[in-house]
């Protein structure tokens, strides 16, 4: 009996309990995955009798799923880019400054994460509406009347890409600033000073030294931003009303709401599609997450 260890009764019951919990947690995911390819999907978990791609095809043909997906990708992708750039510069500044307002500022921005977004929605909408009015006036003065509407869908603050991108960025920026600031705290100033002595100008110091050194921190912040913004429901619901600007989570929600018949196969396929980018992003950026939360720069 070499290599085989007898389990104690306590261990058996512990593993048994954990396994049962695991199965319980995984079942919904299993159901979604199976139902999305099951021609006769129902609300009950069952092994499909055949495999079909019809549900996925329906998303892109009968509905405007491709457009929803594109809208989500554009707004969330842009918000991630904004957060990484602004968070990178701001995080660096917050790490290096000794200004008296540093601590108050850091705690003030974290309030944005603490307050429930729903509570902020009314004043935020009011502000965005005013900004949208100003932007509308500006757009009407430079763009011919027949293309005003499509221009506003891009640069509008309400029911436009720009507004949603800014709101999503603003929601995610505080956490990103904290992550990147903490990462720069662990990055000694010596590297920058050595580069300065080597004759690097400020642009070269950023591009050749700071960005490569801060990559794990920037990557981790970017990943959390992407996942956070991708999963956001309230902001797209509040700020987007045009059908052609619809985002994936809203499309999913509206499909679920359709009163008389619920098409479980279609819903599941939509859910799989919605989950996919977050999982892919996590797969790519996981090592940044691990690096930036387990220790700074080695060497």
């Amino acid at each position, binding site marked *: 009996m070499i290599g085989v260890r007898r389990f104690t009764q306590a261990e058996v019951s512990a593993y048994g309990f954990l396994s049962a919990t695991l199965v319980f947690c995984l079942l919904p995911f299993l159901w979604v995955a199976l139902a999305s390819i099951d021609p006769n999907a129902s609300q009950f978990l069952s092994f499909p009798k055949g495999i079909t791609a019809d549900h996925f095809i329906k998303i892109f043909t009968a509905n405007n799923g491709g457009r929803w997906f594109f809208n989500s990708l554009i707004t969330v992708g842009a918000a991630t880019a904004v957060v990484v750039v602004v968070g990178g510069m701001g995080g660096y500044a917050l790490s290096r400054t000794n200004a008296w307002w540093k601590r108050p500022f850091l705690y003030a921005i974290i309030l944005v994460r603490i307050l429930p977004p729903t509570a902020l929605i009314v004043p935020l909408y009011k502000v965005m509406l005013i900004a949208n009015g100003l932007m509308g006036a500006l757009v009407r003065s430079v763009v011919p009347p027949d293309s005003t509407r499509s221009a506003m869908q891009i640069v509008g603050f309400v029911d436009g890409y720009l507004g949603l991108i800014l709101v999503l960025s603003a929601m995610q920026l505080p956490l990103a600033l904290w992550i990147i600031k903490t990462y720069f705290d662990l990055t000694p100033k*010596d590297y920058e000073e050595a580069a300065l002595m*080597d004759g*690097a100008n400020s642009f070269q110091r950023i591009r050749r030294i700071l960005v490569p*050194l801060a990559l794990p921190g920037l990557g981790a912040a970017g990943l959390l931003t992407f996942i956070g913004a991708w999963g956001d429901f309230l902001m797209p619901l509040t700020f987007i009303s045009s059908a052609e600007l619809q985002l994936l989570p809203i499309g999913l929600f509206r499909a679920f709401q359709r009163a008389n018949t619920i098409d479980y196969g279609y819903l599941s396929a939509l859910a799989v599609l919605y989950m996919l980018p977050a999982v892919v992003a996590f797969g790519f950026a996981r090592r940044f997450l691990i690096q930036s939360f387990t220790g700074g720069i080695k060497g």
Partner: protein
Amino acid sequence: MATISIENVRKNFGAVEVIKGVSFEVADGQFAVLVGPSGCGKSTLLRMIAGLESVTQGDIKLDGKRINDVPPDQRGIAMVFQSYALYPHMTVAENIGFSLDLKKVPKATIRKEVAQVAELLQLSELLDRRPAALSGGQRQRVAIGRAIIKRPRVILFDEPLSNLDASLRVQMRAELQRLHQELRPTIVYVTHDQVEAMTMADTIVVLNQGNVAQWAHPIELYRRPRSTFVATFIGSPRMNLVKGIIAGKESMPSFTAADGWTVPLAGRDLAAMHSQSGWLGIRPECIRLVDANTDADLSGEVVIVERLGAETYVNVAKGRDTLLVRVQGDIAVRPGDTVQLAFDRAGFHLFNQAEVNFDHSSNDLE
């Protein structure tokens, strides 16, 4: 190559003055060491020469030209950091060649120059490695390589050996001296280790609390310390200091320790200091253990014996004073023994109440 002049330089951080009017000069090709306890301002001064800190007042000159406001990379000065600060995302070759790459030197030229520097520093085998895969001594050499490839007029070292273990430190000390002799740059080297300072320097600037305590050649510092601070900082084990008073007849002065014992100070003109209190300093190697029947100056009780093999340090108590005696070889004394001590009078240093040397309070190199 270049001469560095520090003229009345001051530095304030907010309301705190950390450098309080420092002046010294490093001649072309010299190896100068700034030494002092932590917080004396030596690293700040080095960073001011590098251009990483601004100068509050006074001038820093390179070959007579004021460089206070010249950007760091245009001073012709390279610096080796205490942490080495090797770029972790670049290979050894990229680290060494980075400054040339920034200057848009052709890749082939960079490769050739990096190879030369690597040859000089025995790094040729390691050029493709990342800093994380190097040992402490190898990282140190890469940091030096990154400095010398720029062919700087001056190289600054900020405690470069403090992260190495003891045996590697001795080896790198010799290597740095070899490099200095081969390339002859002007070097300013900061350390808190007086052994490093004594072994490598052409000239030493001892700093204490933002002031120059003494600026002299190493042996001069050892032989003629200007103050009790320098006397106890330079030399290991440190100089014995005994508080007391200049007494005796004016023609035959003597030193009476606060604890009562007296030694004659024959052959010295101490009329001006007569009956003033002060300090007698004597290095451990200037005290001998002698037989009871010869002319002993003092007898005392052995407290602690430290045996190093080649030599033995004996702590001898006389009343409340303890004198450290350095004896060649291994000798048979035990704590509790009574021993006779004889002083080498040429090794006496007398300091007044302000802890400044009576005999030679003039500046050495200024």
